């Protein structure tokens, strides 16, 4: 009897328990959890106006180092970097000869000496009058060439060249793509390989002729050189400021990300970040003008905006071999 009672009791208990759902261990197979996640997001994308949103808490935004900024006006300085070389200002170079041929009696300046206008460079004894007269500097500047030593005949030759190096030219090579952008009057930042050497000047001339060898035009910048640090012959880099204009809507350039073949900015709304396709305009590397897609005052992810993109796209991340 014992047995029967036992068996029946067992059966009853089992039947009672059996009606509960079959126990299935919630296996913490992470693969699925990650997958499911992806799908949830996909689902969201379909529900909410066909676009994915990334909801992140303040805390998350902070730890991820996402910088938030507001769309607003900015001054965009569009520049064109080009290479160039320093040349003496050709308008400020004078060749000095002897007015009356004769013998050079005395030379008082050497190459590199600074001279003021009217200062005596040499004394020449005229062949005709046998009188000595001074050869004077026609302008203040530096002696850049001397072809005169005492006792020499002056003949017709050039005795001195004097250049006024208080201004120099920067000869810029413009390649065809850029020619149309560069105009007389534009401001140019000039830098040398010595990082301390910086200057600013204006474009004074754009050559009407090109050179066929390297397909370039020359543009000329007048550069102040009071401190004489721009030595002619130096190669320099220059940034031509093409335009400096305030734009009403601009975002930081690191806010732009590509998403599904669009350029987007991640705009923060009530439901999180949303990838907003935008049309961008001018840029200066730091700021980008937005011509379409954003409104002033909207908050967007600037620094580390990639994290938002990564969060949005993580459902598609996988390890394929």
């Amino acid at each position, binding site marked *: 009897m*014992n*047995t*029967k009672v036992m*068996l029946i009791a*067992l*059966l009853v208990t*089992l*039947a009672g*328990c*059996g009606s509960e759902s*079959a*126990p*299935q*261990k919630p*296996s*913490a197979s*992470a*693969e699925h*959890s*990650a*997958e499911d*996640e*992806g799908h949830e997001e996909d689902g969201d994308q379909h529900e909410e106006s066909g676009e994915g949103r*990334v909801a992140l*808490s303040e*805390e*998350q935004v902070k*730890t*991820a*180092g996402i910088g938030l900024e507001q769309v607003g006006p900015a001054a965009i300085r569009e520049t064109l*970097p080009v*290479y160039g*070389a320093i040349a003496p200002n050709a308008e400020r170079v004078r060749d000095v000869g002897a007015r009356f041929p004769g013998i050079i009696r005395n030379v008082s300046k050497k190459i590199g000496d600074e001279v003021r206008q009217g200062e005596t460079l040499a004394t020449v004894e005229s062949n005709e009058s046998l009188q000595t007269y001074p050869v004077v500097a026609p302008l203040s500047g530096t002696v850049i060439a001397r072809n005169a030593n005492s006792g020499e005949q002056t003949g017709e030759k050039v005795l001195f060249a004097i250049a006024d190096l208080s201004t120099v030219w920067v000869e810029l*090579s413009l*390649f065809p*793509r850029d020619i149309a952008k560069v105009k007389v009057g534009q401001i140019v930042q000039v830098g040398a*390989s010595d990082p301390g050497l910086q200057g600013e000047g204006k474009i004074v001339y754009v050559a009407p002729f090109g050179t066929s*060898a*390297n*397909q370039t035009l020359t543009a000329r910048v007048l550069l102040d050189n009071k401190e004489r640090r721009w030595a002619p012959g*130096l*190669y*320099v*880099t220059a940034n031509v400021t093409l335009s400096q204009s305030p734009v009403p809507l601009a975002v930081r350039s690191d806010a732009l990300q*590509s998403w599904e073949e669009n350029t987007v900015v991640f705009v923060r709304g009530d439901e999180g970040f949303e990838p907003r396709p935008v049309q961008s305009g001018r840029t200066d*590397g730091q700021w980008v003008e937005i011509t379409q897609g954003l409104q002033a005052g909207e908050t967007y992810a600037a620094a580390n905006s*990639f*994290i*938002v*993109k*990564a*969060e949005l796209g*993580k*459902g*598609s*991340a*996988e*390890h*394929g*071999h």
Partner: protein
Amino acid sequence: MIDSLLRLSIARRWVVVFLVLVVAGIGVWNYQRLPIDAVPDITNVQVQINTQAPGYSPLEVEQRITYLVEVSIAGLPHLEYTRSLSRYGLSQVTVVFEDGTDIYFARNLINERLQQAKSQLPDGIEPEMGPIATGLGEIFLYTVHADASARQPNGQPYDATALRTLQDWVIRPQLRQVPGVTEVNTIGGYERQYHVTPDPARLLAFGLTFDDLVAALEKNNANIGAGYIERNGEQYLIRSPGQVADIPSIEGIIVAHRNGIPVTIRDVADVAYGKQLRTGAATRDGEETVLGTAVMLIAENSRTVSKAVAEKLAEIDKTLPAGITADPVYDRTVLVEKTIATVQKNLLEGAILVVAVLLLMLGNVRAALLTAMVIPLSMLMLMTGMVQSKVSANLMSLGALDFGLIVDGAVIIVENCILRLSQRQHRVGRLLDLHERMETVFQATREVFTPSLVSVLVVILVNLPILALTGVEGKMFRPMAMTVIIALLAALALSLTFVPAAVALFLNGKIEEKENAIVRGARNLYAPVLEAALRFRVLVLAAAVGFVVLCGWIGSRMGSEFIPNLDEGDLAVQALRIPGTSLSQSLEMQFQLERAVKDMPEVRTYFSRVGTAEVATDPMPPNISDGYIMLKDREEWPDPKRPKSDLVREIEEKLEAIPGNAFEISQPIQLRFNELISGVRSDLGIKVYGDDLDQLLKAGNAIARVLNSIDGADGVKVEQVAGLPVLSVEPNRAALYRYGLNVADVQDVLAAATGGEEAGQIFEGDQRFAVIVRLPEQQRGDIASLSRLPIPLAAGGYVPLGEVATLKLAPGPNQISRENGKRRLVVSSNVRGRDLGGFVTEARAKIAQEVQLPTGYWLEYGGTFEQLESASQRLTLLVPVTLLMIFALLLLTFGSAKDAALVFSGVPLALTGGVIALWLRDIPLSITAGVGFITLSGVAVLTGVVMVSAFRDKLDAGASIDTAIREGAMLRLRPILMVALVAALGFLPMALNTSTGAEVQRPLATVVIGGIISSTLLTLLVLPGLYRMAYRKAASVPAAEPALHQSH
């Protein structure tokens, strides 16, 4: 034959004991040689051919390297298939050979073919074979770490480059010497390089090019030997050292003369230690680190090797500069030892319980010890068997062993010997002499030997389908079946030789069959119950059948899993970010993950690999990282009882909060296995083969749409092939023509500028570092300044890159996968809530109907369903055959189909207890549980045979059917209870243990314990009634002459 063997064993008992000792000695020796690991190695025979191609994009890698390597490998003997992967800078061809191919033979063949292929590969591209290792090869990981106060000899703090230099030139060479280590892989830090970074403007100023710099560097950095001269009878060697040794001497190298003035490197470029363009990095607890991995040679003993590595590393650690430590972060020994300790503990506790049961039930210390001796002896024989059949000791192979099962045969024999010996002593009323003893032992053994033989044969038979498994399943479970079979055969051999010999030897005193309290109590309890069971036999039988049906129903509703995962104690977190994520971005994101978790009180350390290591055993792109969360010992947790799943959940929550990462949490070995055997691991993988990547993707997407429309599809995925951002610099031929440039002129400058060009090496003792010429970092990174990159013209002057080429940012192919020499794309899907076969058939039909493939494109269906299909085909054939064989065996034993059927009918009833036990403990069905059912059927058959043969013996002796059943049942109560108790108690520790590795064995043990309870009840209560019903008519007529005694 058995008779004569038995007689011989008893007669030559000392010889037998001696031989057994010899065999045991061999077992001890083999135990030393037995490879021990935590889990079986499921890696296939594969060789990776890695080719580094710095700077090559996936398309170029595929076209110029992967294809050629694949072609050269095609047609090797025993080749199963090849698959390949072309990524940025890396080509990996994985060659998979048939199981059982000798890896060295395979590597030799490949090596030969690669030699031929080399001539066709681009200059400087060298294919290399991966380390000779398996998925279990990464046994030891360590990080190289510097204290904040540590200083290099030059006073600088140790940075990632300096640490990497230590790893590359001090630690790694020494660790590679450790026997059993095939490779020491490094990831993280930067290889030290000397970087010459010219300023394009200054180069222009001097009219110099990158090439001029490279040429100058190469011409001014060499030692030569110039033979020897003889002078005054002596021989003088001539050498001219011209290598540069440091930065100032590089700076002083003259590049050109301008107006008689030498232009040195210093004038046009900066020279400094630089960072390589790396493909991977390592992090630990939120900081960069250098991570070394010791890889074990195939078929070595992981415990020995990783111990040796640990010792060597500790030795090296002492010689490292002050403040630098090489810190082991992952040591396989820990896991192996924990696992083996668990197995040992289970086995030992089981053994003790078994001995206790024997003592209690037999009431004879000598007999109990003698029986227990079978355990160590058969274990030692098993060791020999495992070494011979190349089965490693691990959780799976040792997991199904139950000492109860092993001693079952011996128990029955010893029990019967004692019974008969004491009966005879009783009869003759004195101590038996040697001859009488020997005779009695022979008779007693002979009497019950058949049941133990049959039960062993049954267990072996039911294990046969497992031996027939192939692939991963086979590698996992074949060792299990092998060890069980070997151990049982050993035990069988022992109970045929050693046991009777020892009984005859040692049971020489007065043998009293002590009816101790337990056995008496059991008898007293059993008698009325048996009586009742016999009277209400129809009811009992009906209840039993109902019970079977109920359990079948429960079983069908239970969750199932492949194998319970071994809890490795530590966690692996694979973090995945969107394709195209840069390495430094990925690192930043990894730091965040690590910082979120590392301060948890349970976490010891969290380290990760991001991207690909130096030896690309696991070619991950930079957007993926493999992280390892090493946990502290439980005792150090604030709450040592906290369930691991709870901890995992907390970690998951913390990681979840960090945006931008998808991740998969698994365990270190598991992760590695998944990567190695990858191919397609989903239920259904449809491979699209073809030429054009866009077409493949289009077809793949179409297939995915079809799959999604089919009922049951879950997680349909198209392989990620696109999405790598590519800056393509497309030369404009018209513009090039104007300037008189070649395409190569542009490309060379670009490659040198951004990728860098190697211009020789700097030697410091053994250490050698590359000299690289490339653009300064700030200019490489900026697209605008790249487009200004001056391209020198032959006639002098320059043209900016943007003038002669178009710079386009566009997504390009992320990776190109190929299989068997053709591009392929995988669409994978899992199947939920419907049968896999039906799903696949429907998918095939629908895809054939709805997806139009261009000509030259074809599909292949693969995935786990293939294995399932082949496994189920095999099993549908093998299982009936096995059942038939068991029946045949029983038929042979009893010579009566009726008796055979009676014993056989016990099997399903025995299984019910297993199902119930699983269900009560919330354990899903798994293959390990299945192995439990197999064991169970063996025990069920054993007890059934013991019982039925007792009935028959009584019938033969002329008893009436009722008396025969009653007396037989009472007679066999003790052995049946003992068999059941030893088998169940032997598994008890396994079922209850919670330490590392226990979860793999738990289902098996649970099934056996539950099943034995039901099977014992069945044997004791249902079988007598059933027998009575079966022989109702024949009750008066004695059964046919038993075939049993004549069949041998």
